[in-house]
């Protein structure tokens, strides 16, 4: 069986399960099954798949841009920066259209990443673990300013929903912006080779003929928009962008032209699985996919950290 057939079967199977599982049964005929599918189950499934694709791709781009596999947007403060932007626009123009809010959040996310890149330049490269440590502290600072603003202006609840990704609120008419992720995914696939080159670092990438600054700018803009869309519509899920690319690259190496679809599929499958799991663990209540992924993702990350050999020189 060709790999893409296996992936298609996996995603198709998960989607079918996701369409069938939920608080109301679609098989007993009490409610119009087609109506439930159209208004709730299908949007929810699509939202989980798109979110997974977006987060996984954002992780790849960030990892290539800073040449460090231990990071992803939520480990360098990007969602927190987007939340600060959202808070600002919510306070300044409460009635702004959702597209406006999202654009402001995207700009803020981009600024946040720019500042992090400035910081990252001051950090020595000898130890790859330093970058995520600094990134987490940086994100923590951004988030504590966000908490402070939200606390003084009574917006704490917003902050909670932006930070904790979940799909129970997804309905027809409230998730369509996530399709932007699909467009960005296609764009990233078109420049996959150049993003692979980013991972060589500035000097080498330039000598291979890459316009480094421009490529990295496009990549990070894509990450910013993906992050903003996800934070606004369903809330952020940690670790997806870290795990999907790492698992794929351990298994298939670093040719992004070949691997980007696999990374995207893995991200989509894992987010959808987390959402399904959250629905069946304690029905009729739901556990947010973000919570499930935080626990599961942290465990895998711990394994990644401590399973790989510390230093080959000791052997």
């Amino acid at each position: 069986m060709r790999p893409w057939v296996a992936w298609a079967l996996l995603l198709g199977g998960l989607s079918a399960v996701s369409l069938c599982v939920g608080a109301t049964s679609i098989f007993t005929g009490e409610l119009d099954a087609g109506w439930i599918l159209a208004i709730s189950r299908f949007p929810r499934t699509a939202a989980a798949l798109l979110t997974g694709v977006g987060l996984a791709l954002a992780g790849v781009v960030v990892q290539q841009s800073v040449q460090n596999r231990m990071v992803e947007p939520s480990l360098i403060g990007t969602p927190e920066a987007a939340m600060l932007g959202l808070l600002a626009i919510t306070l300044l123009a409460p009635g702004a259209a959702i597209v406006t809010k999202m654009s402001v959040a995207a700009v803020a996310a981009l600024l946040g990443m720019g500042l992090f890149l400035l910081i990252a330049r001051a950090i020595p490269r000898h130890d790859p673990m330093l970058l995520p440590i600094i990134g987490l502290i940086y994100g923590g600072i951004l988030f504590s300013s966000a908490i402070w603003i939200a606390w003084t202006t009574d917006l704490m609840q917003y902050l909670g929903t932006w930070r904790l990704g979940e799909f129970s609120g997804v309905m027809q008419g409230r998730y369509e912006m996530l399709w932007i992720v699909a467009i960005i995914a296609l764009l990233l696939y078109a420049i996959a080779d150049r993003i692979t080159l980013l991972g060589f670092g500035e000097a080498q990438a330039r000598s291979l003929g890459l316009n480094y600054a421009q490529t990295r700018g496009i990549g990070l803009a894509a990450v910013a928009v993906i992050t903003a869309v996800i934070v606004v519509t369903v809330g952020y899920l940690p670790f997806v962008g870290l795990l999907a690319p790492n698992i794929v690259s351990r298994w298939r190496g670093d040719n992004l032209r070949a691997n980007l679809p696999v990374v995207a599929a893995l991200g989509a499958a894992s987010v959808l699985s987390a959402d399904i799991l959250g629905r069946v663990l304690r029905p009729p209540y739901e556990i947010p996919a973000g919570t499930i992924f935080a626990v599961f993702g942290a465990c895998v990350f711990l394994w990644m950290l401590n399973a790989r050999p510390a230093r080959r020189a000791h052997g």
Partner: protein
Amino acid sequence: MPGRHGAPMADRRVLMLTGVLLAAALLFLTWHLREPMGFILSLRAGKLAALILVGAATGAATVLFQTIVGNRLLTPGIVGFDALFIFLQTMLVLVLGGVGFTQLHPNLTFLGETALMTGAALLLFHVLLRRGAEDIARMVLTGIVLGLLLRGLSDFAQRLLDPSEFSILQFVTFASFNSVETANLGVAGGLIALAILGALRLAPSLDVAALGRPVARGLGLGYDRVVMQALALVAVLVSAATALVGPMTFLGLIAASLAREVVPESRHALLLPAAAVIGAITLVAGQFLFERLLGQQGALGVVVEFLGGLLFLALVFGRRRL
């Protein structure tokens, strides 16, 4: 060059800092004092003691931790201690229920939490440092990720609480100096004082350990043993402070950085007391400023965290070395 004349000079600076702390403490106690004096004084004295204990413990713990890690940007607070604290509180509320939780004897919860947190921290250090104390960055990152894991589990458990239990929990997991259990001050004071004394006894070894593992071992220091002892002290200090008032991440960074400015040499016999005193001054003076002069009781924690965060960025940009 801080040569032979440097040492007494720095000693005098630590004395001066202690004087500043005493002055701040007096001001805190006596500002606008009116009847009933005894009652107000005892209230203020309790709060003052908490501020001094937490400031001193956090400052000293951060200096210890930074020496061991060989990095002046990190604080023990970021290694998941706050998440562990919140997780323990959540579990207590979940298991005992809201009413049972509020009826627990405060000394019992305090000692239990401190013991559990110290134990967990030592276990983490032990498991991760067994292969050699040079792999500190991995340990730090593992601690942070464990913190994220615990936070996820707490989120998960909080979904199972009913709203009134949740509000009790929210109240105890916010860093606050207004709700300190005075019953715990004696126990916490004893623990923290012992740990700081232990750190001072370790000071000469720490001076050598600060040179890095190869050099320190070359000079005949049992480096790994010193690291484990210092980390045990850090665990006790941070756990006691966190269990007393709740999580504070960046206070230690402020205290340790200022201490290194005031005491320009890296003798731990001076650095440790300086950082402890500066930590205490920061909290006492800050609380005085916000509570008495600006009339904002709850703002100190947030402001210290925010300023500490800015300081962190300034250090990254200013020094350009880690």
